[in-house]
């Protein structure tokens, strides 16, 4: 039981009201009275207690709440404080703002905006409903909603507009690029078609050119004339030319030939005289003088042979003379050598040698004996020799040791060393042997006798040959001298012998040679004689007396013969010239007749001077015809070639074949070629085109970016929607909101059934949303009342509609509906009647009659109090 009702009020000493008692019902109490009837006094008295306003008033308000009845005392603060235990949960603010409705409130409502209106509907704590939470949610998401919305009031949001525009542009670029690439295919196809057209056009042009050239050739052919007879007799004309050339030469040379004849004759005479000087030949015999080259060769040969033989003979002779001289000299040498030898007094060389040896032997023995007797084993020579050998042996051994140390035992050095060593050893051995021999000899003689004997023998021997050896101390010296002399003589003798031998041998050779030379000389002489005979025959044959001047004679003869021949020929030429001119003239006339060259006359030999010119003219004609013939042949060949060339082409028809036609065709080919080049360039350029892949990639990236942004956006929108839905749900379950809607519907007589606290609109059946700000005054007031009632009616409930410990307080309405019409007033009263089921209503009004009427008509149960 939460209804808090005022059952009774006693007012005393308040606003000139004293000791007035009023009783009230728990439902709707209508307190009517004119102005100054005390309505405000009653209202203020009650209000003041609830709002704890201190005054001098006395009296009380008797209340009933939760089965308890108690008085709330009016008066000073202390007394008001005593009321607190009954009304502690009812704040003065709550009461003032929630449970007192007067005309000022409606005036406020009329001017209030939607927010201000919303704030009137508070939750039970006196706070605006969801103010905090809604505020936060709205703050967070309203701002973000604006930012992330795909659209705004102007259409697509700027951010997304930019992104989609970008996307569209990328797509356009891609399409452009695709078109470019697409055109590659068509370009290739165009090129293929064009190539075929070009080929056909070029072919037609080539064919036309061939025809054109052929036509030209045919025209050219028509313009060529040929004299066939001229061509037929061309060879005759060539002969005429040759003939004339020869004639001309002769004619030109006639004088020269004559002169030549004279000159040759003179030369002949001179040379003949020369010849005669060399050889006596008569002119009449000259013809018989036939000297051929072979004759000259033979003559030369004979002369040469003779010359060689004579030369050879002379050589032999000089050699023979030399030999003879040599023999004389050799003989002289022999004589001289004999003489020398004789001077040596050596009659028998062998005996001489033997004597010499004997002498030496004596000498040697003598020396040995002397030496032995003097204690010398060696003679000085032997001693020196032995010393030399010893030194050499020593040196060799030294070298051998060095070789061992320094290892330069090259094989050749080794052999040399060994050889030298052996020689030294042999030398020393020889000396030793000689010593031993001398020793042996000394045994054969006794000492002094032997000495004397040796001396004697030696002196004897020397004397034999006229030498003198002195005995005694000079024996050795003189003996040695004699021995040396004898040796020298022997050597001399032997030299002379050798010399003589040699000389004799030379002499022999010289004699032999001499004999040979003589033999040769005889042979040569014989040959010369034969040669002379042959020569004689030769000369006889060639009719010459000698071979002297043969060369010159031969040359002269040859020249003379040639001169004679030349003279003869020249004379013949001169003779023939006349005849040839006549013959030529005939041939010329014949040629002219045969060839039908009517422009030329018949000529005689006397027209000879003109013949050059005539022939030139004919030559021109002939050459011209030849050229024409060649030209015709060439043209025919050309035409044949053109026909062959044309045969490979298809047969094209032309209206006329002129240069103009060709030019037209050329232009066609040219334009197609240019077109092909252009398309080929286009194709090449297209192949270089790239970027489609990059563009597609970039577009992909952009699309994904947009996708991501939109995802974010949608996420935010979802959240916003969720909050909105939650708010709606919240609103739908808010008891004061629910009540407010109900009351509003009642107050407006069902016209408006919905209040949207989110959008701050009202709506009803068939009536669209109307903004609170745009409501009429009356509707706004109705709305306001509904909100106030909604709040007041749920003051005792929490958000879930459960009791919150607070009472349902009575609501005091101070004639707030003065501006309402009857209908509205009726509606509000009905509503209040409904409201009074939960909350006591104290409705103060001065419109007694209208209110009474409504109450009666609507059968509203009420407590009527008239002041």
């Amino acid at each position, binding site marked *: 039981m939460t209804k808090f009702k005022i059952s009774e009020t006693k007012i005393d000493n308040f606003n000139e009201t004293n000791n007035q008692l009023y009783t009230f019902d728990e439902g709707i109490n209508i307190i009517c009275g004119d102005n100054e009837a005390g309505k405000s006094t009653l209202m203020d008295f009650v209000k003041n207690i609830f709002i704890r306003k201190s005054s001098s008033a006395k009296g009380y308000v008797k209340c009933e709440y939760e089965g308890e009845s108690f008085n709330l005392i009016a008066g000073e603060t202390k007394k008001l404080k005593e009321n607190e235990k009954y009304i502690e949960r009812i704040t003065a603010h709550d009461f003032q703002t929630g449970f007192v409705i007067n005309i000022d409130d409606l005036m406020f409502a009329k001017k209030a905006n939607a927010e201000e209106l919303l704030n009137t509907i508070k939750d039970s704590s006196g706070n605006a409903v*969801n103010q*905090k*939470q*809604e505020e*936060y*949610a709205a703050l*967070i998401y309203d701002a973000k909603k604006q930012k992330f919305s*795909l*659209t705004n009031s102007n259409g*697509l949001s700027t951010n997304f507009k930019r992104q*989609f525009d970008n*996307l*569209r542009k990328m*797509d356009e670029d891609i*399409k452009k690029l*695709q078109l*470019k*690439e*697409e055109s*590659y*295919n068509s370009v290739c*196809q165009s090129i293929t078609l064009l190539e075929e057209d070009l080929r056909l056009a070029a072919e037609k042009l080539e064919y036309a050119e061939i025809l054109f050239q052929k036509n030209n050739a045919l025209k050219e052919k028509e313009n060529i004339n040929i004299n066939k007879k001229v061509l037929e007799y061309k060879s005759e004309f060539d002969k005429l030319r040759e003939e004339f050339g020869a004639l001309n030469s002769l004619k030109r040379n006639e004088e020269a030939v004559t002169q030549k004849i004279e000159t040759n004759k003179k030369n002949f005479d001179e040379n003949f005289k020369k010849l005669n000087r060399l050889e006596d030949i008569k002119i009449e015999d000259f013809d018989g003088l036939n000297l051929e080259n072979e004759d000259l060769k033979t003559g030369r040969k004979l002369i040469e042979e003779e010359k060689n033989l004579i030369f050879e003979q002379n050589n032999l002779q000089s050699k023979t003379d030399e030999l003879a001289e040599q023999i004389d000299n050799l003989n002289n040498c022999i004589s001289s050598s004999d003489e020398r030898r004789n001077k040596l007094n050596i009659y028998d060389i062998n005996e001489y040698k033997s004597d010499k040896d004997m002498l030496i032997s004596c000498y040697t023995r003598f020396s040995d004996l002397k030496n032995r007797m003097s204690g010398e084993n060696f003679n000085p020579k032997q001693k020196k020799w032995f010393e030399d050998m010893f030194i050499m042996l020593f040196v060799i051994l030294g070298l051998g040791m060095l070789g061992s140390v320094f290892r330069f035992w090259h094989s050749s050095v080794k052999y040399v060393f060994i050889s030298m060593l052996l020689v030294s050893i042999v030398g020393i051995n020889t000396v030793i042997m000689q010593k031993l021999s001398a020793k042996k000899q000394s045994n054969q003689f006794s000492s002094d006798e032997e000495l004397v004997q040796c001396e004697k023998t030696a002196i004897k021997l020397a004397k034999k040959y006229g030498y003198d050896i002195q005995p005694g101390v000079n024996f050795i010296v003189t003996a040695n001298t004699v021995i040396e002399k004898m040796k020298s003589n022997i050597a001399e003798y032997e030299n002379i012998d050798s010399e003589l031998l040699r000389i004799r041998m030379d002499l022999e050779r010289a004699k032999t040679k001499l004999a040979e030379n003589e033999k040769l000389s005889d042979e040569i002489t014989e040959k010369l004689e034969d040669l002379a005979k042959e020569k004689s025959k030769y000369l006889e044959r060639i009719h010459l007396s000698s071979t002297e001047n043969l060369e010159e004679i031969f040359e002269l003869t040859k020249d003379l013969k040639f001169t004679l021949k030349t003279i003869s020929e020249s004379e013949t030429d001169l003779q023939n010239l006349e005849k040839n001119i006549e013959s030529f003239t005939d041939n010329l006339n014949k040629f002219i007749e045969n060839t039908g060259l009517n422009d030329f006359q018949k000529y005689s030999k006397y027209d000879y001077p003109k013949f050059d010119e005539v022939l030139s003219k004919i030559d021109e004609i002939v050459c011209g015809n030849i050229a024409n013939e060649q030209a015709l042949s060439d043209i025919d060949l050309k035409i044949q070639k053109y026909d062959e060339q044309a045969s490979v082409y298809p047969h094209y028809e032309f209206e006329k074949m002129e240069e103009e036609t060709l030019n037209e065709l050329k232009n066609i080919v040219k334009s197609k070629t240019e077109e092909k080049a252009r398309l080929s360039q286009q194709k090449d350029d*297209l*192949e270089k*085109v*790239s970027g*489609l*892949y*990059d563009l*597609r*990639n970039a*577009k*992909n*990236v952009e*699309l*994904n*970016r947009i*996708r*991501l*942004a*939109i*995802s*974010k956006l*949608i*996420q935010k*929108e*979802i*959240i916003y*929607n*969720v*909050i909105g*839905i*939650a*708010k709606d*749900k*919240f609103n739908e*379950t808010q008891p004061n909101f629910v009540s407010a809607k109900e009351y509003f519907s009642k107050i407006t007589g069902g016209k408006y059934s919905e209040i949207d606290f989110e959008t701050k609109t009202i709506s009803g059946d068939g009536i669209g949303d109307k903004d609170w700000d745009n409501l009429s005054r009356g509707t706004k007031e109705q709305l306001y009342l509904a909100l106030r009632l909604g709040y007041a009616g749920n003051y005792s409930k*929490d*958000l*879930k509609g459960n009791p919150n410990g607070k009472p349902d307080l009575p609501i005091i309405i101070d004639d707030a509906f003065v501006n309402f019409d009857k209908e509205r007033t009726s509606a509000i009263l009905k509503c209040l009647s409904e409201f009074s089921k939960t909350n006591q209503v104290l409705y103060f009004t001065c419109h007694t009659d209208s209110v009474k009427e409504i109450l009666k008509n609507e059968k509203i149960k009420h407590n009527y109090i008239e002041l």
Partner: protein
Amino acid sequence: MTFSFIHLADIHLGRPFSDLPELGEKKELCNQACTRSFNKITDLAISKKVDFVLIAGDSFDSEEHDLSSKLLFRENLKRLADNGIKSYIICGNHDSIEVYKKNESYFRFDSKYDGLINITGVNTPENIEAYKPIDGVNIYSASFKSDESENQLKYLPKIDDKNSKDFNIGLLHCDLDKTESKYAPTSREDLRNLGYDYYALGHIHIPEVKESGAVKIVYAGSPQGRTKKETGAHGCYYAEINGKTVEKLEFIPTDFVRFSTMDIDCSDCENKLDVFEEITNSTSNINEDAELSLLEINLSGVTNAYKDLTESENLIEEYRQNFGDIGKTAVYRINNDTVPCVNESEFAEDNGIIGIIHRGVEKGEINLGEIYDNISEIHEAIYKKLGLDSESKDFLTASLKVDKEEITESAKKEIKSLCSEIYSIDKV
């Protein structure tokens, strides 16, 4: 009889990378990746001196003209042919025979390439064709006439006595293990029944050997992955055959850019900066053998950084502007799956709007899906009015459907965070 071949498919020349933000310098790497990958396979074929190359469809992304792609394709086929390597190409759903015919000028080859470059249905009269590249080997191929196709196996010859001793290859573009598909749905049993030795398949972009027994069924995958769904290595298969035996079947990676994902727990992060630093530290340890690793980062965990992260207008751009790339890696997408640090029990019983919001969202009384659908309707209508090209429109409209769950979940989390925040302020 020994021979070797290379099997590739789904080159999709002309298809740009999807889902990428502005990558700065690395953009060019991505742009060139597909071209380089294809060139690399051609170089590989030449260096290994294979006997032939099989290309199982979708060589081009669409019939829309991309001249450089078509020229590249033509030049590589010619390069193979100039080195004596035959190529056998079939048409897929993206590059059907129709597409080739519309672009025939690109695929008109000189007569010296006859028999060397074989595009089934393009330079042959029929869309089903049999080839004999070398003695003892048969290739049976089937091309898409248009962008859809039924199962084509019924048009291919079965193995009989005549060709049972040969090594028989089926070259197909199909959807394996699917009964309802617009793209030649095919079953493994059907393939086995046909009796070929090797099925060179195309259409699925992830490389995989579906069957490795006596009958090999292989999807070559695309040589270069291009969306976040195409993670891992991409390339081609190289096979060496001896008689009827596949002696070697080797996957050779040829991709230059590789997609991968990474999960990062943000529980210890206080703000966005912490999160970014965590990302940077984690990505610096990546070691892939591709030239560029594109990373999708999934942030998770209950974190105080949630609000910071969600308030970011464009998280990936912010990260890239402040932190850039490290080495061979580039972060291209950051998914914020973190959860705010909220004590829901605090405001679960709130009597005000917060309580209504929380209870409504948790229990589904407030249906986020419905709200999303309503918003989507409005957006779709706006897209239509904007005059966008059909591709952009379709993309954005499709995104609305695709992103629904993600966005509603994010909204739910953010609502909780907001409730927690407002509730805290309210209490203060």
